[in-house]
Structures are given as structure tokens and as C-alpha cells.
């Protein structure tokens, strides 16, 4: 599968590494219950991270640890109770569930969201041609979203996040339901975006893909534990703001390292 070149016409201002496109500092989030005798759920308790231009960041953690909540806060669609979130540049958000309009066709979905992004008709056409080719769903362009399979729906879901070539991509389990070819195409696309200086944060359960990330954050008990992925596979970690050591991160990385060589199974991880 070839990746159509987009040339140098990059929307947004991403052009150099080292610039932060999103940062979250000591973010807290609790889901309160309005009813008496029912518990509130504290999801994030001082979560801190940053994503730089041209960086691919993985966010991992157990089911129910708050990864999607964190991503919603980074995107700005969820409120947070404390802490700061700063964003620079345009954002593309791909939520875990395809938040689309079921009775619109694929083409109409591109048109609607392209208009939302302020793209011209030609830009929408180009983006649609590019993404339907890269992710291989061109033959479904005239199908309504509700008539698509889960995997194809997810392709449209991802395309909506990518089509305007944002400075920051926030992708929540973006390859759920993808076939193997599309899964590989997705990672090729990510490399291309990295080279263009786009910051990419991906929620993923696939530990075997860790080498594709520049940095991995593990969400555990409301905190983020940061680990930079080095060339020599040695563990390189920074203490988080509250000086919690990363032993847990180290242990899961060690176990994953023992299992490397297994084929990654796209979209077969249990969703959060």
C-alpha cells in the first residue's frame, strides 16, 4: 500500500522539534456522583505530561485507569478539576468511540468536518483522496456511516482527526478493528507525521509497539510515569514531578522485552 505524498503543504505551524504542542501539569479529575451513598471516582490525581513537535508519545495503562479521560482533557472536550493544560496549534482528536453522524455518508462526513476546520473545497477533496487511499476505504465513500463495519467506521473516525493536518494529534486506540495492512499503514503515516513535526499522542495497549514511541507514559493510580525510549533498549526514565520512581514501568517493560518477536495484534486488545 503506497502512501500518497502530501508534499510540503503542511497546515499549522509545526516545524521544529523541541516546541511543546500540549502540556498538562498536575491535572486532577474526579467523576462525582450527584446521588448520596454512591461513590465518586477519582481518575486523575496530579497527572503531568507534555508532547513536543515531531514526537510520538504513547499513553498506556490498565483498563479503567483514566487514559481516555486524560485524552479528553488534553483535547479540551472534558473539564478538569485542577491543574493546567496548555495547547499550541491546531488539534486533531480521534476518540475511542467513533463520534460521527450515522446517517451521513463517508464523503458527507469529510465535507462537514472539513468545513468545520475551515478547509476549502479543494483541500477537502485532496484530504479525502489521501486518507481514503492510505487507509484503504475508498470504495466505501458513498456508504452511510451506520452501514460501515466497525473497522471502516474507525478509519473514518481517524481520518476526521487527520484531515486538516493539525499540529497535535490525540488518538485514543486509533487502530481498533484495523486489518493488519491498515495497521502497518497507520504506523507509516505516523512516521510521516513525525517527520513533518506533528506531535502525536496515542493511547495504546500494544506494548510490543513501544519502539515506535519516543516517550511512553503509564497512567497508574491517577499519576503518569514517564519513560523515554532509548536506542539501546536500556531503561531511561525520569522521575515524575512527585518523585515517584518508575519501578512498575520498568517491570512491565522488562516483561514485554522478553516477549518481543511476537506479531502485534491490532485491534484485539480489550478496549477501556
Amino acid at each position, binding site marked *: 500500500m503506497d502512501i500518497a505524498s502530501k508534499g510540503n503543504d503542511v497546515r499549522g505551524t509545526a516545524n521544529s522539534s523541541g516546541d511543546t504542542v500540549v502540556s498538562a501539569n498536575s491535572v486532577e479529575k474526579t467523576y462525582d456522583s450527584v446521588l448520596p451513598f454512591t461513590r465518586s471516582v477519582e481518575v486523575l490525581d496530579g497527572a503531568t505530561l507534555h508532547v513536543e513537535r515531531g514526537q510520538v508519545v504513547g499513553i498506556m495503562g490498565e483498563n479503567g485507569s483514566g487514559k481516555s479521560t486524560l485524552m479528553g482533557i488534553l483535547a479540551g472536550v472534558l473539564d478538569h478539576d485542577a491543574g493546567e493544560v496548555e495547547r499550541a496549534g491546531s488539534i486533531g*482528536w480521534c476518540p475511542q468511540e467513533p463520534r460521527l453522524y450515522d446517517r451521513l455518508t463517508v464523503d458527507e462526513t469529510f465535507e462537514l*468536518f472539513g468545513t468545520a476546520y475551515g478547509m476549502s473545497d479543494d483541500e477537502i477533496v485532496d484530504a479525502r483522496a489521501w486518507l481514503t487511499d492510505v487507509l484503504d476505504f475508498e470504495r466505501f465513500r458513498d456508504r452511510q456511516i451506520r452501514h460501515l463495519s466497525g473497522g471502516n467506521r474507525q478509519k473514518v473516525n481517524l481520518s476526521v482527526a487527520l484531515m486538516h493536518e493539525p499540529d497535535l494529534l490525540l488518538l485514543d486506540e486509533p487502530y481498533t478493528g484495523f486489518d493488519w495492512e491498515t495497521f502497518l499503514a497507520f504506523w507509516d503515516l505516523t512516521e510521516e507525521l513525525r517527520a513533518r513535526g506533528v506531535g502525536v499522542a496515542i493511547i495504546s495497549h500494544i506494548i510490543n509497539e513501544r519502539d515506535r514511541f519516543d516517550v511512553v507514559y503509564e497512567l497508574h493510580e491517577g499519576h503518569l510515569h514517564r519513560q523515554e525510549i532509548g536506542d539501546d533498549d536500556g531503561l531511561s526514565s525520569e522521575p515524575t514531578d512527585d518523585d515517584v520512581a518508575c519501578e512498575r514501568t520498568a517491570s512491565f517493560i522488562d516483561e514485554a522485552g522478553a516477549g518481543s518477536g511476537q506479531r502485534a495484534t491490532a485491534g484485539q486488545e480489550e478496549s477501556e
Partner: protein
Amino acid sequence: MNRRVTTAVQMGVREFRRTPVLLALLVFLPAYIIGTFVLLVPDVDVPATIDGTRLTVPMTDFAAAFMTPVTVAILSGIVGLFLVQTSQAADDRLRLAGYTATDLVVSRVGTLGLGIVVVTMASVVVAVFAFTPESTVPFVAATLLVGLTYGILGVVVGIVLGRLGGVYVMLFSPMVDVLLFQNPLATDAPEWTTLLPSHYATNALFDAAFTSSIDVWDFGGAVAYTVGLLVIGVLVFYQATDVE
């Protein structure tokens, strides 16, 4: 007009067109409701208080005129309720993509308005088979205002109470408001019924149906009520779809 708004309304209309069951219901149900009552009510004259004047009208004419706003209120309320329910998750995303709250609200109200026009036309067509309003254009306008009032109320209720609670509210409120408390057959209506959503619009409607005079204050009051609800709806919608 703003490109975002026209595109969103265009897509809203397309989605609407692709729900044939809903469209069929919106056309069939007015025929069922109004037609049923027109055919089944006794063939008598009834005393009705319209615009402060006591009139005697045939029951069949009364049923046709009266069940029109009842029908439009119920159908518009339910449509408004679910319009916002079905699109809420994706509307968040549109906001993030660049739609302002105003763009979205205007688009949704535009789409809702089109649905209400369908309901109003279907209801009025059935009603005029049974009787001829004294002033047809004001009759249609007043019916539309009832629809808009309850459509916007449906949107607000849908956002605030959710789907299940919203259905219960829409089950009761048009019947209670229009059928019970704005009924011209009532002889002892409490003063506070003038505060209910459909008061001015139904007054204007009955005026148009059975008298040759048009009470501008009733129309003005109906428009003001609708605009007031729209402002509340915009605020509630803005709050629900707010992104940083």
C-alpha cells in the same frame, strides 16, 4: 450565510431524509390524531371562550382546531428532544473542529425548524379538511409558533434531563399545557395558566380559527416566549457542547 451553518443544515436535512420511518410518522400521526377526533366527537355545538368572548362552535370544528396545536406540540417536542440526543456526541467534535456554539445552535434550530414545518403542514392540511379557519395564514403561523415553542423545549429538556426523563416530560407537558390548561371549553381557568409555554400561541390560533380578528398581543407574546426559550436553549446547548 455562514458556510458552516449552511453545511450543517444541509447535512441535517440529509440525515432527516434518511429516516423514512420518522418522516412517515410525522405525516401519519397528525392524520391519525386530528382525523380520529374529528370523526369521533359528538355532532353538537359547544360553548367556547375565545379572546374573552363566548362563542358557540361545532364540536367537529373545535376538535380539528384544537387537536392541531396538541399534535404539533407533542411531535415537535419529541423531535426536538431526540434531535439533540442523537447528535450530542458528535457535536462535541464539531465544536472542537471549529464550529462556534452559535454556528451549531443556529444549524440545529434550522434543522429543527424544518422538521417543525413538516409537522405543521401535515397537521394543518388534515385540519382544514375538517374545517375552514376564519384566517388561514395566522392559523398556520400560530401553529408554527406552538411547534417552535415545544421543539425548543424538547431540545432543552433533552439536554438537561436526558432521553428517558425527556420522554416523560414530553409525554405530559403538551397534553397538560395545551389540552387541559389552554382549552377554550374551560370556564374557570386559573390566572397562572397564562405563564405556560403555549398560552399566547394557542390564543392566537383559536382567534384565527374562529374569529375574524387577530390579536397582535397574542402573536407578540408567542414570539417573545419562543425567543426567550431559544435564548435559554442556546445557553444550555452552549454549556453542553463547550470545549476549551
